């Protein structure tokens, strides 16, 4: 790889009060890669993911040590604008969480708060482009004024992805985006991730080994707050270096 990594985490530790949830983790996420985080429940995948857009700030007891650089810039620096950071690093949650607004307003939410659209026509275009990229446009183009919460679970999740990409982020974080969805909706999301790859750096947390194998180029295995192994996905699944990784992916524990 010739480009410098998009995200560089250096020696990151996260504490909730006095308990350590992440223990000295360093990891690089490349510009146009999909990185999967796997590991047993409670090992800190979500916690680490949430440090990347500073969503841990909303947890009063959380504290982050170490350094996280986005394009070489320390995102925990005092002069970092969190609002801008989160516009650059979008997030999709485990449970689809559309706002109780119309489909249109859901997607227009980000562009509106960041003042990205000068005129209504611009906004319309942004909404359409985002919905198209999220593969939802054809399903909803005739009912943009319906409530976003009236969509099916899979459609809601794609709406949330459309909402996230509407502000043109550079990185998209996804925390188990398919765990509340059926296999067909899951397949659609995975297909979508394939299409988004290259345009955004994507980090996805998943409990589904096949999913990690299907969508990602690199996989990070976490265990008890530590990063056990970080390698190209094919290596992790065919030829893991660490005993613990092998045990986990072969289903021996976790």
């Amino acid at each position, binding site marked *: 790889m010739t480009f410098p990594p998009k995200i560089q985490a250096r020696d990151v530790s996260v504490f909730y009060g006095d308990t350590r949830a992440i223990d000295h983790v360093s990891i690089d996420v490349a510009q146009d890669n999909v990185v999967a985080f796997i590991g047993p429940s409670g090992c800190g995948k979500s916690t680490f993911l949430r440090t990347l*857009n500073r*969503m841990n700030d*909303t947890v*009063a007891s959380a504290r982050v040590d170490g350094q996280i650089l986005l394009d070489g810039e320390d995102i925990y620096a005092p002069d970092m604008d*969190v*609002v*801008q*950071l*989160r*516009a650059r690093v*979008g*997030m999709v*949650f485990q*449970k689809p*969480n*559309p*706002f*109780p*607004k119309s489909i249109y307003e859901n997607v227009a*939410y*980000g562009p509106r*708060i*960041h003042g990205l659209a000068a005129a209504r026509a611009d906004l319309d275009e942004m909404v359409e482009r985002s919905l198209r990229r999220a593969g939802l446009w054809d399903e909803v183009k005739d009912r943009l004024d319906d409530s976003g919460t009236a969509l099916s679970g899979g459609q809601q999740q794609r709406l*949330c992805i459309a*909402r*996230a990409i509407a*502000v043109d982020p550079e990185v998209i974080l996804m925390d188990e985006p398919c765990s509340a969805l059926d296999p067909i909706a899951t397949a659609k999301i995975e297909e979508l991730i394939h299409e988004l790859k290259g345009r955004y750096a994507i980090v996805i947390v998943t409990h589904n080994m096949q999913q990690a194998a299907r969508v990602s180029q690199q996989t990070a295995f976490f265990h008890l707050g530590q990063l056990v192994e970080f390698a190209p996905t094919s290596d992790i699944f065919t030829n893991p270096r660490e005993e613990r990784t092998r045990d986990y992916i072969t289903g021996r524990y976790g």
Partner: protein
Amino acid sequence: MSALGLLFTVAGLALIGWLVARMRAATFRRPRVARFSALPAHHGWFVGICTLAPPLIFLAVWSATAPALVTDAVLATPAAAMLPPPGFERASILSEARELGAGRSQGAFHDLAEKLAPAYARAQHRYDTIATAAALLLAFAGGALAFTRVRPDFAARTQVERGVMLMLLVASLIAILTTVGIVASLIYESVRFFRLVPAGEFLFGTHWSPQVVDSRDPGASLGALPLFWGTFFIGAVIAMAVAVPLGLMSAIYLTQYARPVTRRWMKPTLEMLAGVPTVVYGYFAALTVAPAVRELGVAIGIRWASSESALAAGLVMGIMIIPFVSSMADDSIAAVPAAMRDGSLAMGATTSETIRKVMLPAALPGVVGGILLAVSRAIGETMIVVMAASGVATLTLNPFASTTTVTKQIVDLLTGEAEFTSAKTLAAFALGLTLFAVTLALNVVALVVVKRYRESYE
């Protein structure tokens, strides 16, 4: 035997039944295959309940019918022939005689009452004896009958369960029946009022001066529109202008901004406002706020600024209502899923943008429901307006002018000499009924709104 003694005796019998049945059941041998269908305690309770319930039910019915029976017996005596025809005098003689007969008073105003007193005493004694005997008999019979059923295979447990269920049912029925009774009497008196004054004149008449009711045309001075307006103006406009913004903002601060430590002391403190007795608010309004408001009115050049202004009562009422608004708003904001908030924050929205654009719209139905409940409380609030609002009914938009409210007028109408047949007094019931109807409607609407909203987040 005195009533209390009788009750104790019956209870004692029940206790004995309980003990005996328990002891007997304890001697049952454990069946070889099946388990006991009931433990000794259940048999005990079964017999105890069967001993206690029949006499209690009998006594309850008896105490409602006995006075009439006693009076009938007295009326059958020769002395009763001298009683005046049915009316106020006859009733007062009889009640004097009853008090004398029961030994609760020494002398009587009417001679006839003294003559009738012994008859009362005798009849009372006779019926008391009958009641005592019947109650004891019922207790014995119930207990004995139940005792014969105490056998190893008797499912006393389910019977006791049924008894408990019945008791709980009766308890809840008492509360419901009381409410129904109160509403019924309100309606009954209001109907009497509306026979004297047409509903249209009462509801839409603009002249209210109950001190000078003309008995030929009572409706002319019993037009309650100014009262309804005053109530609405003080309770729903001025009080809400204070309570809604303050309550909402404190709820937002507490749920979204305050650190847990701050919240832990601030929320209870705020809720303490709800525990301040309304009479304290009342004198706060009358002694502190009202004069200040009047001075303010005079200072800004309002000549008729009253010292019993709508503004003073409304302001204080608004303060009183703050905790209701804030805790309802707090609940509904807290009920908005955290995922919604995180979703907005993750888009790069600030906390206040998130509140304005996501949390509040989502919590709106709950907030509105809370405000409606607060309004219904405010318009039913009495103490503050009794102490701080004026008695003069005026249809005015000027918050510095004096206004009165429905509750204040009800108090005024019913204190002092009240004659329960005059249009003036009956008007209090009509006002009460109207107030009840409005608050009930508000509560129902509010609950429906809140419930619908809760469901949408299940």
